[in-house]
């Protein structure tokens, strides 16, 4: 199974992500933001970071990069696409996922471990089962997923909320004020998943949690 990691100049979680994908058994190739073609791959991954500094809006400039044309095209053909954190922001700005990501409700960047519950199984939920709660870090300043009431209702009706923040043992839950505690959503066709938390940082033997390893392992197996 081959995963294409899409790199922008300000991407900074590429090693975290490629480590996680390799741990799960994937082969990793990269694409550069100026590329007009993607390398042949079974999965396209947009990792976290600050793609172009993200001073205007997170992911706004990246979403207009040349590499986005083949990504949009691949997504349309049903190729699985995973966007994490800044990758999620880019997918939204590119129109591959609906809604918007606003400044965290607390206005501050937040890096901490949160509890995530899988709400539905899909092509990109790996070995996780509905109701599974995993400990995964978040690290973002603009992760406040905003959906107006129509969109929020539609996402629930169409069962497109994949991950939700749930309270941890000490009562801390949603770290950013997102609508409906949404942490990750999928497109209608079921092949483009965007999420704010960083499952890639919960896969290594020495990381604070390994809960997300089955997530990657399942994805890699299903695409092998």
């Amino acid at each position, binding site marked *: 199974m081959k995963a294409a990691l899409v790199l922008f*100049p*300000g991407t900074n979680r590429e090693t975290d992500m490629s480590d996680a994908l390799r741990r799960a058994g994937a082969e990793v190739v990269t694409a550069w933001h100026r590329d007009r073609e993607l390398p042949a791959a079974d999965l396209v991954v947009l990792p976290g970071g600050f793609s172009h*500094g993200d001073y205007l809006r997170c992911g706004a400039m990246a979403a207009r990069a040349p590499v986005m044309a083949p990504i949009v095209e691949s997504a349309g053909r049903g190729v699985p696409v995973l966007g994490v954190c800044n990758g999620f922001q880019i997918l939204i700005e590119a129109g591959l996922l609906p809604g918007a990501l606003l400044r965290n409700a607390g*206005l*501050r*960047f937040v*890096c901490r471990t949160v509890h995530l519950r899988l709400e539905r199984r899909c092509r990109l939920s790996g070995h996780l089962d509905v109701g599974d709660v995993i400990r995964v870090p978040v690290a973002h300043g603009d992760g406040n997923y905003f959906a107006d009431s129509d969109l929020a209702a539609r996402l629930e009706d169409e069962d497109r909320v994949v991950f939700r923040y749930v309270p941890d043992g000490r009562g801390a839950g949603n770290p950013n004020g997102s609508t409906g505690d949404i942490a990750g959503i999928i497109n209608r066709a079921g092949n483009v998943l965007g999420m704010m938390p*960083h499952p890639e940082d919960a896969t290594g033997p020495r990381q604070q949690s390994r809960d997300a390893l089955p997530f990657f392992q399942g994805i890699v197996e299903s695409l092998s």
Partner: protein
Amino acid sequence: MNAVLPDIAARHGFTADEYAKILDHMGREPNLTELGIFSAMWSEHCSYKSSRRWLKALASNAPWVICGPGENAGVVDIGDGLAAVFKMESHNHPSFIEPFQGAATGVGGIMRDVFTMGARPVALLDVLRFGSPSHPRTRHLVSGVVSGIGSYGNCTGVPTVGGQTTFHASCNGNNLVNAMCVGIAPADRIFYAAASQPGAPVIYVGSKTGRDGIHGASMASTGFDDEAEAKRPTVQVGDPFTEKLLLEACLELMASESIIAIQDMGAAGLTSSAVEMAARGGTGIDLDLDAVPQRETGMTAYEMMLSESQERMLMVIHEHALEHARGIFEKWDLDCAPIGRITTTGRLVVTMNGRIEADIAIGPLAHEAPLYERPWTLPEPRPPVGVPGSPVTVESALITLAGCPDLASRRWIWEQYDHLVMGRTVAPPGGDAAVIELPGDRGLAMTADATPRYCEADPVAGGRQAVAEAWRNLVAVGARPLAVTDCLNFGNPESPAVMGTFVGSVNGIAEASRALAMPVVSGNVSFYNETRGEAVQPAPTIGAIGLIDDLDRMASLAFGGADETIHLIGATSGHLGASLWLREITGEEDGPPPPVDLDAERRTGELVLGLIRDLGLASCHDVSDGGLLVALAEMALASGIGFSVRRPDREVAAHAFWFGEEQGRFVVSSPCAGKAIAAAAHDAGVACTVLGRTGGDVLTVDDGQPISIESVRTVHERWLPDTMAGAGETS
């Protein structure tokens, strides 16, 4: 060239003697640009004119030191073909004027010092000293500084993994912001800043030059339009995204044989980078300012030479590498311009519009800055305070201390920092030292420490203590301490009392670093941290790194489980002088600090390292601020496991035993190794006492009233968020 009047020299901060020296070196009157160049190079910041003489006392060699002070950062061999490159620097004044940008650009500057040497930055630490929490400006400063540091580290993708934060009224008018960066490089590919090859092109890369931070400019404003000057801010704005590009581009270029010398443009920008590179290489340098990428129009040579625009680098590269370098910088969207050549003249020659704007011999600029022998006096030793009676119970003192400004949890701070990016953080903030994973199951541990209230009472002991605490924090995670960097923050060196605290601290650091075999490989001095005669408490911050050979044996402060035996290693006598107990419970800031016995310190540390290595302790934590019971409570908080402890002898009063701040102590716990621990301590000649056992969800001290962990957690975790509530960023 226009000659300069002596009063303009005075406004550049030169004394009459200094100006006479300049005339002597030049053999004529300098023009304004030349005077500006001298003022930058001979400033306290660049020339260390008050401190140089004393810094010589610091030991900087050891077999594992690859490069000591004098380069952009210190370099230490960490085995397996790798080197750690690290340094700490202050950005105090800018952070007080504009906390967000001041702190952000402080982080940017120290990162450049590290990747200039060929290392990829892998961790940042920040040491913050603010005024009293109730001072009207404090919350604004905390909020801005913390988000500034976060914004820069988070965007560049370097985890901020540790630091120190203190509050004291002496910082009401001058907060201190010290940033430390640690990088990793191949040990045989370190890049230096000695421009050795005449004829080689000098290239400028990174952001364009603007009129940022030209301090001298306002002093010399007679030559300029006064009104324009008044509007011109001296605060630099950071651009972390450009820094990220610069970092990646430089590392990419460093993979080839292209670079002869490289130096970031930090304080005094183009001037100091050009002069220092030529001085180290024993060469000269010609610069053509017309070729410098510029953000603004109509800049003068003076302004360009002194601009402190951020995110810029100067390099000397091989002629044949020019095209290769251009290609890389283009890929990363960065300006890259040849702006001069290395020469054999030994002179700095600056031209603009075909005119020579400056022509100065490098030697005097770089090496002959004035050197001052400032008068100094040490403070009178404070008489001991003994054991004052306690107005409160031990339990209630613990609750007060756990939630006091200097001991409350720093989670509110480090959760604003991406401390996990890169995926290598194995010990995140909150422990004794942070640890980053290295290849081969090894770990790099780091910490930053100083106790200003000790340094104020006794600078020599305070200097020793800062090094000893850093040593202990490394030992507590199971790391072999390797080397230190320092950041020495003091008031006005022209005051003998301030100068005395500096001299004493440096001597204490020198002694301790020798005794503990932790050479000082880099550092920074920041004087004039004072407002209207009120100086900050002396703050000689020590940053230190250590190595963990086997991460499976890394220790942490969280108890491993219930039913572990808790041992105290090291001796306790109940020293309350200069302690937090005294300050927080009785309101007194008095008495001498606890003495530091460096020999005992070393024996104790080595014993603990051996215990961690050979017995795999369940937990280990050093005892520092707040004393023994605070250390125990921190271990309970980290694990959610309670304890019952009893003081072994009743000779020492309870509050003195539990809150005294004797040095050289650790608390360790283990399910079954009790005997082996006692035996090893006995063999090492180190005191070792069983305090009690872990278990339950309450803390019981001397069979008194149990306190729940949760009640301690609440006061510990709430103080900072509650204090900061509503001080939101509005940008």
